[in-house]
């Protein structure tokens, strides 16, 4: 839509109530124009419980949030529910931790309520560090009060008086929005002493992260909050019993907290009816509610997508995401952030929930979803993520620090064409050791990218090692560009883009690439209209 369209809209739509057909959204899949926003396929299959209000409220004004039933859940909890009833509701709703662990929030709260301690804490993990993931950022920036209200209700349920939000320092807008929201909530009596005239007092502070990926891990986050280096510690005594400052601590992620007011206000039965599985008996029995995914990569519609749990990967990537652009073929989707796994086309009909993803060797993680097309090399992807993790590992424990270095060493030699027989078995051996013996979940899940690449794309890995060939044409040392004599028309088009001047030949005569000086940039391959450059 352009400014020049405005007169027509005013004339026809506002005055006459007509639809301006030519300005409607054109659905590329069906070729039809769509009249209503909710009929646009991108939104049609979404259920925006958490994100929905982002477009309707001004995050800097608490009145907007209150006008949309904001803080009504808190009121209901304080006035009509005992703390245990709140916990029971969250348990029956089947709310599981959105940070990736999928631990039932109600079970966690219950343990914390019963744990003995002079002080208790509720914490919010807003240290979103996965590359390409910005779910929590969007909620913190767009609807900070939903997180704050969730935390107050949680604190009431477990008997905590202090709360902390641990926010990535790289999220200045989220920091600003949360700080303002906390101030406004305090001035309205939602935070502070004797909240809403009840006997319950609670307040929230903000702590800025120090820029380490590992600080999203629960014990590292707590160490960081205590003013120590952000390094994980063993969790043989759970943090709900001995967490921050050795006191009972409930840590939930931004998205988990934002779901809590909805559950309290609309009831556990309503919430558990969304999603898959039966959580009435067993909180681990299913995955209920919605989950926000950060859909990025080689997909037409990138952005935040909130769908009911159990939606299939195909629905998310093709119906909502619009599929892979430029006519390329779908190859894989990486879920769960750097330490998640890559899933192949054959698993596209996998319903996305905590247990199914884990069963497939990947994980929910915080909800990152990176779509990859046929031009992606799976060995290179695994190498990329291990390279990321070896820098982001805190380096405290031996298997994560030295094991990731070893994994990277093997992967590097494979993509350089120096892979050896037995390297796949060696990768699996290192991966098993890292996963089994690492101190925290970062190490525990770090080998996933490698393991799933081997599990689902074994032939591609083997091609690198045995045939010294990269089927996707990504790993430069394994590439050879040559000109197919029968197809070359001698048009000279490949001369100009070649940065190494390694193509020889005269007009109308077959050209030749000098492989000794070729830098394997692929410029000739891309520019040739006759498919005469082969690799």
């Amino acid at each position, binding site marked *: 839509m352009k400014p020049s369209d405005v007169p027509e809209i005013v004339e026809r739509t506002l005055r006459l109530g007509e639809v301006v057909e030519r300005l409607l959204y054109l659905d590329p899949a069906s070729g039809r124009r769509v009249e209503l926003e909710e009929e646009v396929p991108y939104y049609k299959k979404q259920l925006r419980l958490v994100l929905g209000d982002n477009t309707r409220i001004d995050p800097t004004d608490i009145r907007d949030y209150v006008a949309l039933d904001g803080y009504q859940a808190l009121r209901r909890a304080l006035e009509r529910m005992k703390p245990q009833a709140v916990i029971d509701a969250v348990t029956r709703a089947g709310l599981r931790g959105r940070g990736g662990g999928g631990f039932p929030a109600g079970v966690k709260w219950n343990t914390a309520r019963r744990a003995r301690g002079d002080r208790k804490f509720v914490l919010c993990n807003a240290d979103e560090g996965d590359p390409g993931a910005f779910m929590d950022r969007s909620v913190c920036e767009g609807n900070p009060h939903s997180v704050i209200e969730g935390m107050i209700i949680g604190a009431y349920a477990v008997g905590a008086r202090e709360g902390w939000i641990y926010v990535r320092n790289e999220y200045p807008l989220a920091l600003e929005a949360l700080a303002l929201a906390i101030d406004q909530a305090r001035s309205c009596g939602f935070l502070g002493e004797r909240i809403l005239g009840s006997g319950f007092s609670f307040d929230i502070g903000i702590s800025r992260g120090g820029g380490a990926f590992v600080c999203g891990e629960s014990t590292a986050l707590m160490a960081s909050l205590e003013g120590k280096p952000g390094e994980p510690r063993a969790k043989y005594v759970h943090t709900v019993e001995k967490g921050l400052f050795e006191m009972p601590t409930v840590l939930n992620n931004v998205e988990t907290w934002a779901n809590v007011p909805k559950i309290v206000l609309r009831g556990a039965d309503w919430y558990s009816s969304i999603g898959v599985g039966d959580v009435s008996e067993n909180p681990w029995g299913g995955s209920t509610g919605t989950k926000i995914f950060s859909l990025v990569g080689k997909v037409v519609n990138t952005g935040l997508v909130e769908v009911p749990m159990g939606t299939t990967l195909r629905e998310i990537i093709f119906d909502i995401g619009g599929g892979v652009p430029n006519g390329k073929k779908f190859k894989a989707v990486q879920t769960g952030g750097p330490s998640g796994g890559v899933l192949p086309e054959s698993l596209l009909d996998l319903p996305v929930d905590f247990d199914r993803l884990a069963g497939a060797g990947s994980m929910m993680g915080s909800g990152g979803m990176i779509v990859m097309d046929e031009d992606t090399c799976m060995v290179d992807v695994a190498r990329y993520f291990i390279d990321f993790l070896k820098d*982001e590992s805190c380096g405290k424990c031996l298997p994560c620090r030295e094991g990731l270095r070893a994994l990277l060493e093997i992967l590097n030699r494979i993509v350089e064409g120096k892979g050896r027989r037995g390297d796949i078995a060696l990768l699996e051996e290192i991966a098993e050791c890292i996963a089994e013996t690492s101190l925290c979940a970062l190490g525990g899940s770090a080998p996933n990218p490698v393991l799933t690449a081997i599990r689902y794309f074994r032939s591609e890995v083997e091609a690198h090692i045995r045939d010294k060939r990269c089927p996707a044409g990504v790993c430069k040392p394994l590439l050879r560009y040559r000109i197919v004599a029968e197809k070359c028309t001698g048009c000279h088009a490949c001369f100009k883009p070649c940065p190494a001047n390694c193509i020889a030949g005269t007009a109308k005569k077959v050209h030749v690439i000098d492989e000794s000086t070729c830098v394997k940039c692929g410029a000739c391959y891309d520019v040739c209209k006759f498919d005469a450059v082969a690799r």
Partner: protein
Amino acid sequence: MKFTLNGGTRQARDGQTVLDAARAAGVDIPAACAHEALEPYGACRLCIVEVRERGKKRWRVVTSCLYPVAEGLEVRCDTRKIRKLRAFLLELLLARSPNAPYVKELAARYGVSKTRFSRLDDDCILCGLCVRACAEVVGANAIGFSRRGIGRKVDSPYGIDHSKCIACGVCTFVCPTGAVQMEYARVMELRAQGGEHLCRYTLMGFLPDAVCSLNYECARCEIDQKYRAEAGTHPLVARALALKSGVTGKGAPRKKASRGRKPAASRAKRSSGRRRG
């Protein structure tokens, strides 16, 4: 409380770790980052064992230095899985520090003599004994870890500030590989302060106001030799152990030796008295 160790029933104290209980029972478990005077840390992972909690079906791999014994806990220390994982960990350790005799001996003891990975040739195994001893035993916090991941290293604050170092030498004493050496720069700095410089045993709190007559040539120091002979270990480690066993025995909350400046002073009087006597 009772627990099962490699099939046999054993007794353990409340709050005891599996490593302590197993070692008390004479079972050999390697551990490179554990030290009796320090809090457990769980970085080297060599002390892994398999445990099964009462009423649970699944065996889990855990680090015994951190895992508390519980009633009815079953522990297996020498399964095929543990041997395999431990050998692999030692192979990784050997790749990091292939020249350190301590690492070579430890690896050889568990049948590992070579590594399939590229060597780093760094004698520091990042066990953190020096860092933790400086914090927990000395209370000086003069060294710490800097950087992350494979770049992690032991360093003074910002790589420059050693003004907190009292040159007590505990870090070099606890270092298993000899990677930590007393920095000559610090000694030179102390000397450069000019005039009379305090004896390092005064800085440690063992001697009242004694002055170093040797210009910090600790190797020639008679007081040092005397204290070490008396304690059988580094005097500060001995003090930490004494504090630890004394306080833990009464069942009171364990106090870190790092806050033990007062007991240090009182002990200093006693020891200096003994010295004179």
